[in-house]
């Protein structure tokens, strides 16, 4: 049906990141078929390649896969933390999805990052400024987005801190949010509180999210659709319950059968 074929919020096509100096064969000699993401001819490393997906408004998309499969690379490329090698991403609220955001100027990228995206890093050190207080770190995002009322900012920040007790969460009403291993290393009761908050953001504010996780139960609870990655490539994509109950690719089957 065409009614929602074109309703995407974030469109990613052929997103590729290669370290080193690749040659013509690098892409065809790496990937899940070869069980490696290192090019045998040039020793360049394919962090992720040929990544295609659409994120719809209000949708939660999961990315699972083994360590080093390129999951974090994908979200970091989208959040402009790394320079892509090839490909593009289009974000609907920015120029109505007409320009490739990965090829914009740094100034435009900062605008997009501050106003249209949010990111929670796997390693809190990447996302936080440790010379500021936790409240200050949370407030930073709001200030960057142009909110200047100190009272409002303070109320918002302390509200979030009370809810989660996790000083890494900096969230705001932006249309897309990338979450990289948000629950790793938290005990289950705090984990549940973080998951509550994420569900709330999705249901009440309709924020679309990409959730990167090793924890398949987190994926099952939060996401509608899931991508499975291996050696820098997407090996399978589908509805989350389908991936978990009827995995099609050998690696997805291995992943699901390893579930506790």
């Amino acid at each position: 049906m065409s009614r929602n074929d074109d309703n995407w919020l974030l469109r990613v096509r052929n997103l590729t990141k290669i370290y080193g100096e690749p040659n013509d064969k690098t892409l065809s000699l790496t990937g899940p078929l070869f069980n490696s993401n290192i090019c045998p001819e040039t020793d360049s490393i394919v962090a992720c390649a040929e990544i295609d997906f659409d994120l719809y408004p209000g949708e939660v998309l999961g990315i699972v896969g083994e360590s080093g499969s390129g999951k974090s690379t994908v979200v970091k490329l989208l959040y402009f933390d790394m320079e892509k090698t090839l490909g593009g991403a289009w974000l609907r609220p920015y120029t109505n999805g007409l320009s490739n955001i990965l090829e914009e100027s740094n100034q435009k990228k900062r605008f997009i990052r501050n106003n249209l995206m949010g990111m929670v890093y796997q390693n809190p050190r990447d996302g936080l400024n440790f010379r500021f207080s936790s409240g200050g770190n949370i407030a930073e995002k709001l200030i960057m987005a142009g909110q200047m009322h100190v009272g409002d900012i303070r109320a918002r920040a302390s509200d979030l801190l009370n809810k989660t007790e996790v000083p890494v969460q900096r969230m705001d009403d932006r249309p897309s949010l990338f979450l990289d291993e948000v629950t790793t290393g938290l005990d289950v009761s705090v984990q549940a509180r973080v998951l509550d908050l994420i569900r709330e953001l999705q249901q009440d504010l309709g924020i679309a999210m990409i959730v990167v996780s090793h924890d398949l139960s987190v994926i099952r609870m939060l996401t509608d659709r899931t991508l499975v990655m291996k050696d820098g490539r997407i090996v399978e994509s589908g509805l989350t319950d389908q991936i978990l109950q009827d995995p099609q690719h050998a690696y997805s089957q291995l992943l699901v059968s390893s579930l506790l």
Partner: protein
Amino acid sequence: MNILEVNDLSKVFHLYILNNKKIEALKKINFTMKEGEIIGLTGKSGSGKSSLMKCIYRTYLASSGEIIYASAAGKIDLVKANDHVIIELRKNEITYCSQFLSVIPRVPAVDVVCENLFRVEKDKKAARENAKDMLENLGLPFELWDAFPVTFSGGEQQRINVARAIIAGPRFLLIDEPTASLDQRTKDVVIDLILNLKKNGTSVLCISHDEYTLERLVDRRIALFQGEIEQVEIETDQIETN
């Protein structure tokens, strides 16, 4: 009008991690379902009932064949439709009720039941009232309404599961063993609730082993045996119980 047409549906599981073993779960299934009909799927354990249901809900990807579903907006092949179409249908039209409740951590029973209702009903209070009525009807003790269902007994979880599936009045309901582990009185309540849905136009595909439930609930039965349809009951003797 047919709400569902299943044509030559087959499902083979390729188990790559088990030396490429293949398991044939469904072989060339053909049947149609009228709008507002209740069909009972019967057959021994392992005969493919749940596989068939999961293929329709797209939890399983069918290997070949088609499943034509007449949605409110037109006909859709559930085998080939893209994921977002399926997600929309799941939100608005098709509900699947499995045998077991999959709980959301730290969400009270009433809110679990309301989950589907919250999407359409903006007034959360009204939705909760609605859910409470249903739980009262199903005989779930009052003290449990605001508790977390993780710790509930099998029968209590089962009732919450059924209540959650039917509260929003789906257009097409797939329901797996709705009356297992329930006592006679509660069984009757569940059956009446489903029959009530039927009055409002819901079509129901129901798996059951329980003869009493089948007798009272279904319009006709489809029996599966080793992944094939063994017998289709033609609707001649509609059992009038209501």
